[in-house]
């Protein structure tokens, strides 16, 4: 029994250290984000993005949109992509063997014609059946291929894309009209070194959408979507801006990121064996460029917006988070040689250990805390005063960090127009700490087990 008590004491200490380290880092990221957002805002004032529209050095972009069974949204989304403000770009939609009417919808609405397009097959993909072009929309290219999952569709798009920069986006996401002009900025500032840039993902739940554009930002009525709204603000405005300032960015969301094609082709595009292709690509890019000693930059840009719909049902949210966590574990284990390896600089010494301890193992540590609490509660011997104090400190930290994220949102974008939206966000910051947070911890613990049981499905 004394062994178990000693073990539990040890775990308690680990949890305590973990807890304070995590919250310290989150606060650090928030402070860095505040500095980063202010600097970005100040710099944006003297070179307006609309002025960039006429710059001769603006590089053309291929937008790659993998689509699988998206018959309901594909037409509106492609229309919105074709109406973006950018001087030279193409939209490559890859129909990844959809079993519904996705392709038919595209053919009918955009008057697609089958063509005999040949391309450089730099990356091996499932076979391409046909390539379609549209006489009415010359920017649009539709690739029809056998099903091979998202990474494979993106790779097929990479093979067919013509331009030196490519932007990978989800087919159910909507890009803000000026998103490309905003996300290209780091590539103009650092043309030689900039390899990838990520934009911000915002939730469109509750917003008014017309012709593929968010016309009025709203606050979701669904409680799950409300919690996710605050989560996204925390992750993008707090986490990614801070990590980007520390040059430790390991994720560019698959929903919206801009990459230099050459470097991505050098690492053979997206890895097919993973369900977290977005993180995997960025980690492998970082690894490749560090190993080759090529000077590079990967940055997060806080103002180009991509809108996406958050799952409003527990089942789909669970599936999504399970997949994300499995993707994270896959990327980390695949690139494990980078962990604590000085050869990879800050990425190896800070970013990778951070993701291992706080993102990958974090749910386990949190879960262990709940178990120990329950153990002492039923067995007796619970220091209720300490437990309560710890719980309240955890709660306060959690809420304060979320509230800071609302403040960052207010400074950076001022997107939520009504006061009740802010009140709603504040309420969600409080409520998400009960049940929702614990549930997601459980989901991620299960994802961990699923990963080791070899689960590969989406």
């Amino acid at each position, binding site marked *: 029994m004394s062994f178990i008590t000693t073990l539990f004491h040890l775990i308690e200490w680990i949890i305590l250290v973990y807890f304070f380290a995590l919250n310290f880092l989150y606060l650090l990221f928030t402070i860095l984000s505040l500095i980063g957002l202010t600097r970005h805002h100040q710099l944006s004032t*003297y070179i307006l993005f609309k002025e960039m529209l006429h710059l001769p050095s603006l590089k053309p972009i291929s937008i790659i949109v993998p689509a699988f069974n998206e018959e309901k949204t594909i037409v509106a989304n492609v229309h919105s992509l074709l109406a973006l403000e950018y001087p030279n770009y193409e939209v490559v939609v890859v129909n990844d063997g959809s079993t519904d009417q996705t392709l038919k919808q595209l053919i009918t609405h955009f008057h697609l014609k089958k*063509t005999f397009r040949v391309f450089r097959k730099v990356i091996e993909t499932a076979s391409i059946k046909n390539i379609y072009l549209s006489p009415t929309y010359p920017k649009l290219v539709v690739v029809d291929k056998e099903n091979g999952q998202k990474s494979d569709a993106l790779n097929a798009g990479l093979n067919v894309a013509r331009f030196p920069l490519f932007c990978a986006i989800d087919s159910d996401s909507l890009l803000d009209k000026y998103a490309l002009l905003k996300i290209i900025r780091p590539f103009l500032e650092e043309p030689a070194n900039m390899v990838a840039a990520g934009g911000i993902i915002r939730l469109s739940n509750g917003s008014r959408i017309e012709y593929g554009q968010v016309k009025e930002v709203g606050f979701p009525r669904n409680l799950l979507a409300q919690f996710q709204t605050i989560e996204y603000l925390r992750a993008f405005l707090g986490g990614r801006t801070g990590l980007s300032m520390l040059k430790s960015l390991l994720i560019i969301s698959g929903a919206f990121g801009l990459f230099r094609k050459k470097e991505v082709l050098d690492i053979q595009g997206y890895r097919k064996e993973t369900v977290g292709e977005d993180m995997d690509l960025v980690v492998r890019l970082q690894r490749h460029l560090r190993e080759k000693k090529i000077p590079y930059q990967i940055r997060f840009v806080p103002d180009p917006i991509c809108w996406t719909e958050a799952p409003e049902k527990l089942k789909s949210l669970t599936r999504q988070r399970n997949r994300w966590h499995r993707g994270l574990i896959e990327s980390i284990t695949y690139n494990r040689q980078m962990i604590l390896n000085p050869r990879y600089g800050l990425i190896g010494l800070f970013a990778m250990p951070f993701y291992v301890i706080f993102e990958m193992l974090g749910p386990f540590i949190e879960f262990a805390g709940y178990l120990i609490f329950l153990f002492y509660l039923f067995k007796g011997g619970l220091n209720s005063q300490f437990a309560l104090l710890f719980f309240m400190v955890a709660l306060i930290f959690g809420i304060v960090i979320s*509230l800071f994220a609302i403040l960052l949102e207010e400074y950076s974008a001022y997107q939520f127009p009504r006061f009740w939206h802010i009140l709603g966000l504040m309420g969600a910051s409080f409520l998400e700490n009960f049940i929702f947070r614990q549930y997601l911890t459980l989901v991620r613990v299960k994802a961990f087990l699923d990963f080791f049981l070899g689960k590969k499905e989406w």
Partner: protein
Amino acid sequence: MTTQIYIILYSLIFLFLFTLSLFLYISIRRFVITQREKRHRYLRQAIESDILAAITSSPKNSWPVELKQYLRYPDIFTEVLLEFWQTLSGTPREQLKNIFASFLKEKYRRAISSRRLIKRVKAAKAFVIFAEEKDAPVIIQLLNDHPLVKLATLSSLTLNPQPKILESIFTSFIQETQTPLRYYFDLFTSMGKIIEPFVKKILKRSLPEEKLALLVELIGAIPLTSLYPQLLRLSIHPSKEIRVKTARALGNLSLPLEEIIDTLMLLAEDEAWEVRAQALKSLGKLRAKKALTLLAQALFSPYWYCRLNGARALVQFGEKGLKTLRKIARQKKDPYAADMAHMILEEIVTTGE
């Protein structure tokens, strides 16, 4: 039990007060911003109509006194002037410059010497856009300032090119180590042909590859046709990048001279496929008839881009080129060549490109 209640109570009170203060802060901030925007809109309208009235009725250099009252709002005043400057052209632009000189210039000149970087950056933009020839020394000072100020100056010079300070800009370009060169590219492109003698002069110097590549690209982009002999000399440069840019620039000059075509034909047989691909594209642009056979042969190249550019170049020749493409599409010996010819033929039909 009492201690526990205190813990909960104090925590909740802290949370409540923190949330409340944050909400109040956001509310007050929004209120201030909304009021400021309202005032801003109102002032903007007033300044807009007064400036419009001034530039349409007032004789040069004698501006109505109403404009003086807006000196208290220099940011909005400048914003309106900049907006008008971008939409108007010709004499009204000169008048806007004069208004700026009469009311705001001195203020910005002082701001340029400020110790605060962001103030200097903002001042640089407005000052340079409304600069006159006599302001050249100030602009040169800005070009020697912090990289961010320099960047703002260069991007503003793109909107208001100053031929008088070209010498200094080129000196700054030669000495440049920090600012991305693309800002110079945008600036030089906006200046057009007046930069020709300067480019010619500095091409005689020994330049780092990146800068030389930019100048070569510039010759093609503007285009600076009289500098084609310099390009011909660069076609044998040891750097592949320079040869690629030279091939592109020669095509962009649109000068179907014998010596240019011969140089491009030589580049089309370069050891680097990237140079070959670019030369083929340029030969297509120049519709160099004597290169027809070479372009047709390019479709049998093992390099995808050479095949693509060769095929696209053939399209430029009209029926003659299309005939060659059809012939290649029909042949069975090289399926890659046939596929490429086929694709280009279809591309013309489908997208008209």
